[in-house]
Every structure is written in C-alpha cells, then in structure tokens.
C-alpha cells in the first residue's frame, strides 16, 4: 500500500473507530511552545522587572520574547501548505482562534518593537532615542498605552495555542478549558525556567531568587493540578478521551508524558526548587539551571504529548 503521512487518518485504514489525529505534529508543538514562552516572558519581564542582561541596549528578556514569537510564527508559516498566503490567515477573526492568535502575534510584535525602539543601541548611539515614549521618563501616556497593548496581545499570544486545541469539538480530549489553562501555566513556568537558566550566566537577573523559586514551585504545582485534573476528567468522560488518556498513561506516549512531562518536567524541578527554597546555604546556580532546563523541556513535551494524544471519536457508534 502506498501509505503516506499526509493521508487523512480517516482513510488511511478504512475502519470505523477511534482515530488518532495526525494533522498537528511537532511543528505545531514548537509553535505552541514558542508562542507560549514568548508571550509569557514579555509579561513576566515587565511584571517582575526581570532583567536578562542587555543586548543592543535592550533587555535580554524582551529580545528572547520577540525572537520566540517571530520564530514560532515562522515555524507555523513554514508548515502551511501555501506559506505565501499566510497573511490570509488573519481574515477569520470572528471564529478562528488561529486568526485571532495571528493578529495578536503581529500586534504584539509591532507594539513591543515600537515600545522598545527608543532603547535600541547600535554602535553606542541610540538612533531612536528621540521618540517621545523613550528616554528617562518612561511613564508617558504613549509608553503606558504601548505597554498595555503589547502586554495584552502577549497574553493572547501565550494563551491562544491552547484555545486552538480546545476549540475542536471533534477531539474530546482537547475540547476543554483545561487545555488553554495548562498551556498558560506552563508558559509562565517556562519563563521562570529561562530565568533559572540565565542566573548562573548573569549572576543577577534583577529578581529576588527566593521569590523566583517560590513562584516556580507555585506555578509547577498549578501545572500539576491542571494537568492532573484534565487527565482525571478525561478518564471518565467518553471513549475517545479515555483512549487519549490511555495513550498518555500506558500507551505510546507514556514515556514522554509520565517520564518527560510529569516526572522530569514537574516533580523533579519542584523538589529541587523546594530544596533550594528551604536551604539556607549559598545559591546553587547549577541546580537552578537544571530546573530551568527541565521546566522548559517539560513545557514543550506537554504540548507535544497533549497534541499527539488527540483522538477523534467514531462518527457512528454501534
């Protein structure tokens, strides 16, 4: 048989039954992950005054945030069947979560860039310093407005990936608000992960380490609770979502999900952070960096495994 990865799962094997979705794959996981991290990092940086060093006069966190969103968008566009038509994807704002997300991507990028432009430093000079919302007095109205626009759109950017999945009534495992909530929690946890990684490099990221550790524990706990309740609910709802759960717990995704997401992505960093939080000794940058890497990896694997576990219910039951 001429089997092909892009053959619709419904015709790949002509059997009525549970069908594992193959539409969304690794590209989409990367996209979801980067958007989540990008959006959340921008917000975290401005809320916590996170400072990840300075590149070209800009805060490293802003740079990473922008880069993540740009790369995430690029990955999405490259995955399109017709990449040159990506602008058309902004058309269906009314109902399509992707359209809303894509517009917010652009709004975020535009607003954040404009907002940061005055700080841009090239070769020792700041060519855009003349802009009114730059300079020593950043609390101007324009500045506030741009910050609000960028912040709100960043939030949407961080969250819409979850809604893209939860919007799909055809896949019961996704069709729940637990999905965007999880994605959101993981996104913010991931921003702390970036902070933990940056710590040993920069030594100081402008935030109290104990606070960071405490927030990390809280966010990871939230992730665990959200994921756990999602899984628990889905176990009892219908055969398709039960199959999804089985796939995650016992099936082909169990190693990724249990080992990667739950143990390595949540439990281990939570334990390490707790130890660090309660220890009175010197800060163990290395341990925190490991936590950061684990959290980031867990965040990515969560999206990947949730996506891969999407299963359609059969059209008819007998």
């Amino acid at each position, binding site marked *: *048989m*001429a*089997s092909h990865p892009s053959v619709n799962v419904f*015709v*790949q*094997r*002509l*059997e009525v039954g549970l069908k594992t979705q193959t539409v969304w794959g690794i590209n989409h996981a990367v996209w979801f992950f980067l958007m989540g991290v990008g959006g959340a990092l921008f917000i975290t940086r401005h809320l916590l005054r996170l400072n990840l060093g300075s590149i070209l006069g800009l805060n490293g966190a802003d740079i990473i945030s922008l880069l993540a969103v740009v790369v995430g968008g690029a990955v999405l566009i490259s995955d399109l069947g017709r990449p040159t038509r990506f602008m058309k994807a902004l058309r269906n704002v009314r109902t399509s979560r992707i359209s809303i997300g894509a517009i917010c991507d652009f709004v975020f990028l535009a607003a954040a860039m404009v907002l940061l432009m005055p700080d841009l430093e090239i070769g020792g000079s700041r060519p855009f310093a003349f802009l009114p919302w730059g300079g020593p007095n950043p609390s101007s109205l324009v500045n506030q407005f741009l910050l609000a626009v960028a912040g709100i759109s960043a939030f949407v950017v961080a969250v819409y990936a979850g809604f893209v999945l939860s919007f799909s009534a055809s896949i019961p495992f996704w069709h729940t608000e637990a999905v965007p909530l999880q994605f959101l929690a993981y996104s913010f946890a991931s921003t702390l992960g970036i902070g933990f990684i940056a710590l040993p490099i920069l030594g100081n990221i402008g935030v109290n380490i104990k606070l960071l550790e405490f927030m990390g524990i809280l966010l990871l706990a939230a992730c665990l609770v959200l994921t756990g309740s999602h899984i628990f609910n889905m176990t009892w709802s219908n055969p398709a979502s039960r199959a999804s759960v089985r796939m995650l717990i016992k099936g082909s995704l169990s190693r990724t999900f249990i080992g990667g997401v739950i143990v390595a992505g949540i439990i281990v960093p939570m334990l390490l952070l707790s130890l660090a939080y309660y220890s009175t000794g010197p800060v163990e940058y290395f341990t925190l960096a490991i936590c950061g890497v684990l959290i980031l990896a867990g965040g990515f694997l969560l999206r990947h495994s949730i996506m891969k576990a999407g299963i359609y219910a059969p059209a008819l039951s007998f």
Partner: protein
Amino acid sequence: MVRERLQQRVALLSKSFIIIWLIISFKRIDLRVMTTLRQYMQLGITREPQGEDVWVKTICNMCYNCCGINVHRVNGLAVKIEGDYGNPHNQGKVCAKGNAGLFGLYDPNRVLRPLKRTNKMKGIGVDPGWVEIGWEEALSMVARELAIVRKDDPRKLVFMTFDTNSIERHIIWCVAYGSPNFNPGAAQYYCGNAVHPHSYMTFGTFYDDPDFSRAKYSLLIGCQYGFVLGTNAMHGARSMADGRCNGMKLVVVDPVCTNAAAKADEWIPIRPGTDGAFALAVLNVLLNEKQIFDVEFLKRFTNGPYLAKPDGHYARDKATTKPLVWDVIRSEVRPYDAADSENMALEGSYRVDGLDCKTAFQMLKDHVKQYTPEWASEITTIEPSTIRRIATEIGAAASIGATVQIEGQSLPYRPVVVAYDRGISAHKNGYHTGLAIRMISIILGAVGVVGSTLGSNAIGPGYSAGEGPEGMLVPGGGWTARMGGPYPPRKVERSERLDLFELFPLAIYSFTMMPLVMMDKEKFQFPYEPEILIQTGANPLMSTTDPDQVAEWLKKFRFQISIVTSLNETAEFADIVLPEAHYLERYEWNPNMQMMMSENAGPGCWYWTLAQQAVAPSAGVRSSTEILLDLAERAGFIEDVYVLFNAWYLKGDYKLDVKKRYTWEEIIDHLAKSAVDGEHGLEYFKKHSYYIRKKTVEEAYPRPFLKGRIHLYYEYFSDLGEQVRKVWNELDIPFDTSDYLPLPAWKPCRSATVDDKYDLSVVSYKVPTQTNMHTANNPSLFDLDGRNPSTLRVLINRETAMKKGVNDDDLIIIESEFGKKLTGRASVTERVHPEVIAIAGGFGQWAKKLEWARGRGVHWNALIPHTLDRIDPLSTAVDTCVRTAVYKE
C-alpha cells in the same frame, strides 16, 4: 466441392467441440496492459480534435458481467465512466472495478508494440530479453508457425483464454484451426465445475439467477451471490438488497464472514469442505424429521416417482424399456409417460417382477436417513439444533402450495433461494455437495418458480429446454444446448484431447487434466505433443494451482504467443507478445456471452449489446479478435472461420460469403442483424448500445411450463462409472470411480481430518473490488484495497491467533503440508472460523511490469498442489483443501 468439404469439416468440428462452449465460468483471467504513457500521449490522445466533449455508450469488461457504461471523452481523453441508465443489467449502476476502468486504459506499463523474446531460457523471474519488433514481422512470424503446425497436426495448438468479451470468437477461431484444445486457462480449475453440471440438470441452463427480490428466505452456502461479485453482479445486488429490505431472511454458511455474511441475518461458520454434510443433514430433517416437501412438484417435475430396483437401476417396462411408475388409481406399474403425474406414487415400495422396488423419492428419503444433524455437527462444527432450525425455517418459508398472480397467470410461489457457487466447487467432494444442495431446492419445489432460483435461460429467444430420454430435462436450443451437459449421458471413450474430456462424462469441462497430461504424456498414453500456446485474457501462473508446476508445462510449448494488454506472469513466458486493445478501445458483439448470461438480465428481459471503441486505440493495437482474424487470413484458414460464423451465428442473408473478406466491424453488423433483425445492425448498436426484448411469463418463470423432469435420482451415474472404470483400467491408471452414485452422498475431503501439526485449513474468498487475477494492478483499486484492514492480509481467528502468539499485523509464515511456504501479514479478527485462515483472492503477483500489484498481498493459489488424486473424479475440480501450519516469522 470445397463448400461440401468445409461443411463436413464444420459438422465434425462442431461435434467434437460442443464442449468448448462450456468453457465459461466465473473467473476471467484477463490481464490488460499497455505501453508507456508518453507513447500513449503521442499516439492516442493528442491526435483527437480539441473541444471534443462526448459520451460513448459501450460495455464494461472489468469482469464478465458486461454492464452498460457511458464513457465521457474530452479531447480524446476518457475521463469518466458512468453507468448506462438504460442497460437492463446494471441500470446505470457501476461497481468499483467498473468505475476504475480508466486507470487500466492509461496504465503507463501497457504493451503497445509487438515484442520478441531473445532469451531462450524460460522460467519464473527469468528476463525474457524483449526486443520490440514491427507488427508485420510479428504477424508473419506467428502466421508461419501456425501454418506449419496446422499442416502437421492442428491439435498441437492450445488456445488459452478467458477474455469473456471475446471468448466466443476465440472458440470459433480455435475450432476453425482444427484444435480441440481450447482452454480458459484457469477459470475451470475449481470454479463452476460443480455448479454448471448441476444447473444443467436442475434448470436446463448453464447458470442460475436467484429471484432474491421476491424471496422470503435465502441460504447462501459458500458464496456471495448478490454482493457485486460473480455472475449477475449488478442486478443480483439490487435484487438482494431489495429482498433483504422487504423482509427476506438471509443466512450465509461460510468459513469466513464475507461481505455477504456481514449483511446476513445469520452467519453460520462452517469447517471448509463440509458443506455437503450440512446439506445432507438439512435434507434429512426436511424429508424425514419434518416431512416437508412439495409432493405435487416432485410428482410432476422430477423422477421421484420412478421405481428403482434394489440394485439401483430403474424398474423398466419390458416392451419399451421405459422406467416404470406406480399408478395409485390402477394399483399397477405403468411406463412413466403412460401414467398421470398426479396418480403416480411418490413414496413407498412396490413389488415389480418379484422385486421390491422403491420409488426414487423413497430411495432418497431412506438414503439421507443416515445423515442426522448430530452426525453432521461432528463434521461441520455446526450445532445440530442450528441445522434443524435452518431446515425448519426453509421448509416453512417455502410456503408449499402457495401461488402468486403474475400478469394474470397463477404461478407457484416458493420464495426460497438456496444458492452455492465456486466455494463448494473447489473441493474433491464438490460434485456430491452440489447435488445435495440443489436437492434442497428440488424437494421444496423451489426451482424455476417465482421467488426461487431461476435458470438463466431455460426458455429464451427462440429456444426452450425440453424433454430428453426417459422424460428427463435437457437443455433447449441455442448455446446452452450446443454446449451439452451431463445429461443425456455422453459417450465414454479414450480421449485425444489434452483435457481427456471423454473420461469425465458428468463434468462439463475437464481442463484440470491438461497439465497432468502435459507433464506425463506416457502415463496417459497420449498421442501427440502440443507445440503452440496462444494465451490471451488468461494468466494460469497466477490463477490456477502451484506456479512451479504451471511453469513446467508452459515451458513444454515450443512457441508461445501472448496477446495481452500487459506483461503478466504468463506473458513473461511468451516467444511473441502481440499487444491487445484495452476494452475501451475495441469492438465486440454481444460480449454478454450467450452461453453464460444468455442475454439474461433478471426476470424482466433479454438484451443484446455491443462493446465499441470509447477512445481511439493506442498506437495501432487491435482487439484479440481482429488480430486472430488477421492471423487466420495469413495462415490460410479464414474461410473456415467464416464457415463457422455462418454455421453457429449467422442467418439467411446475413451469412458471410467465404470468398469475400470482411472487416471485424462488418462481421459484427452481420452478427447483430442475425441475432435481432435487419433493422438492428452495427449502426443501431453504436448509437443505442443495447436492444431489449421483454420476457414473457414463461421465460421469466419457466419451470411450470417445461416438460422435462429434474433428476432426483441419478440412475445413469453408475453405468457411466462402469464405463469410466473400464477406460482407466485400459490405461492402467488407478482411478477412483466410487463417486458415481445415484444419490448425493457424503465424501469427506482433507479438511475433515485432524492434523496436529498442520492444524489450520486455508481458504480464499472474494472481495467486491477485484475481479479474479486481472484487476489488482489497477492503481486506484489497489489503493482502495490497500486501505482495507483485511484484504491484503491473512485473516486468522482471534482465539487461534492468541494460542499461536500471533498479533494483528504480525508477519506470519503459512506452511502447507506439501511444503509450500507463503508469507503474509496477520489480520486478527473474529470473522473467521477458528480452524481456518482466509486469504482474499486476486493478489500476490510478481510480474515485472505490474507496477502496482507486484509483491502485494498473498498468492493463495500457490498453496494448491495439482495431482490426479486431488481432483474431484466427477467434476474434475482441483481440491483446494490444504492443511497449513501458521507461525510467526
């Protein structure tokens, strides 16, 4: 003088050739093929005018049902096939195969130029070293060989075809050449061997056509009649669906839960090859336990009342030697034709000339007493209660005594269909099983009447089955009669045909003997060595038995001519390949073979039809008929061909002048006008495609209007057995003739024995998306079947698989008790008998040029050994019962 000689010759040939007409069966091994697409684009398509957008009516040839189709042609390119709504057979419906026909036409691997072999070595997988040659060179080379052999001994030519569209023309050609060795190349190995003889004796026809839409109960034994498979595919499917939706109960007895079984109200799994035991037990329940039978029918229309002596022979009238019956009014014996049917005793024992003679019906009744449901249960694995229930249900559904009004006539109404087909035929006990199954319909009077199984053409346009010797049914005029059946008894004698046909007087073909004779001429004291093989529309390497053996006998031919569309496995043995037109590129008259479908389209009407070119033929290819006519001309026997056309088909003014030469289209014009009338020639059929004649009530439901009686008791079998034994003894070949019995009996075959090592029987089944061995290379159909979870894999029962540690999709080895090994993927399922593995037929090809089919699926036929002791001595079917061991790779 010449004319006279020719006529004599024709008479002689016709006589010896009656049989050839029997060649028909289900399978059509016609591998179509083609050249490169580039060539096609250059030569076929682009020369058509731009802006063309037409629909051409023609006939489908993806299987032998010949549905009417409408081909959409746009700028020379055929882009769609749709049903011809007016065609009475399919009424606008087309199956998957028919829809996919275009992909065969445009197969980039088609042969479009004649090829010559350069490698002297022949064998499976051996590269023939083809070189392209011109048409002129190819044809003159072939004609030369044909002329040489014809002068020497024309019998040395073997013609092998099952291209059902053209087979009647192929037969004429072969007969005109002078060879009796016409062979469908596969179809007859275990196809209709135990179907057609029984239809002859039951209906007086070659084939039967169940009246599902009016039936109340249908029992399909080992077949999928009415599921877009086999004969009458389309009107059968409609009729079956209508019947089921009108409340008919459908019961399917089959080792595999086929599509038919899936749609049945009840699937009864059975151990393969044991259907005879089941049928005999059903008979026993009906005749002895429940006493359900149609007395009036049995008296009037069967030899049930004929008296049989204790030695099995009829009690005969001394003066006339006519069989005697007991007249209950006069209380004395009378010749069967002197007594009123109503007054004949159906049951009981009567004293005739000091002997206790029983009626034939009583003989049957007493005979089947031994076959209790409990006994059958051991053999078939079907519960005794189920057998009793099915028998009782059928008996009740038969509504014995009921009548129905059709067009103002009151006709018997027996809404019960008991149908079987190739599945039963493919066993060593097939003949007796067939007799037993047919007997169920006969005792219920469910033969040729409303709601029952109808003969396809007992009374047809210009002919009627009638009364033969001893008052028994014989086929009527037309093709059916010319083909001949198992009754009246044929002469048994030494045979000089490769198939030893004269040694099998109850079979209607015996082509399975050809390989055996070819492999050991001395043993059979055969007088000549075959030299030339013409292969077209048949692929014996795929569709018969053990390919290694087939390769051996193919190699024995000095010169093989393959007239094919694609280079299939058998064509790879050819010395010369002549490219053949695809069915959408050729003309053929009435491809809906008279002998099989007999112009039959269900109880409604008869029809005649024309296949015509829907697209221009590519690169100068011609139909096999045209090529053969050309070769006959070149080899100097075209006049004999014309004479045969005149003798067999053409009437009055439409006879061919043997001195003139006609194109194939002109001959078709003559054929059409002879079959219908002067108004309806080629031009009419090109435009309208078909000509319909409504059936009369007699033609639709013929049994009440026929005189000949149906055999209930085959008195003449034992005499034939004696004669057969004599000839085999002369040949000094041990041959089992114990099957020549007057009543259906249980003959166990291989599957009934327990074997610990080879614990599973292997069976094949049909899928509605493929025809025999000639559609698997269609890319679209192949993709469809490739996505079917079971079609390309080996079905194995879940419990059995568990015991063997086989999981779904595992690679498994199927090892036969004869040492053959096949590899396939397991499809673990509930839909198969636990003692059985099932493989869909039509796959596992290996020819280089079959891009799609090559290497996909499992070639089930490869497991079947072909030896004298595995042939049903009555029907000559090869037994497909093979025990296998299955294990994981």
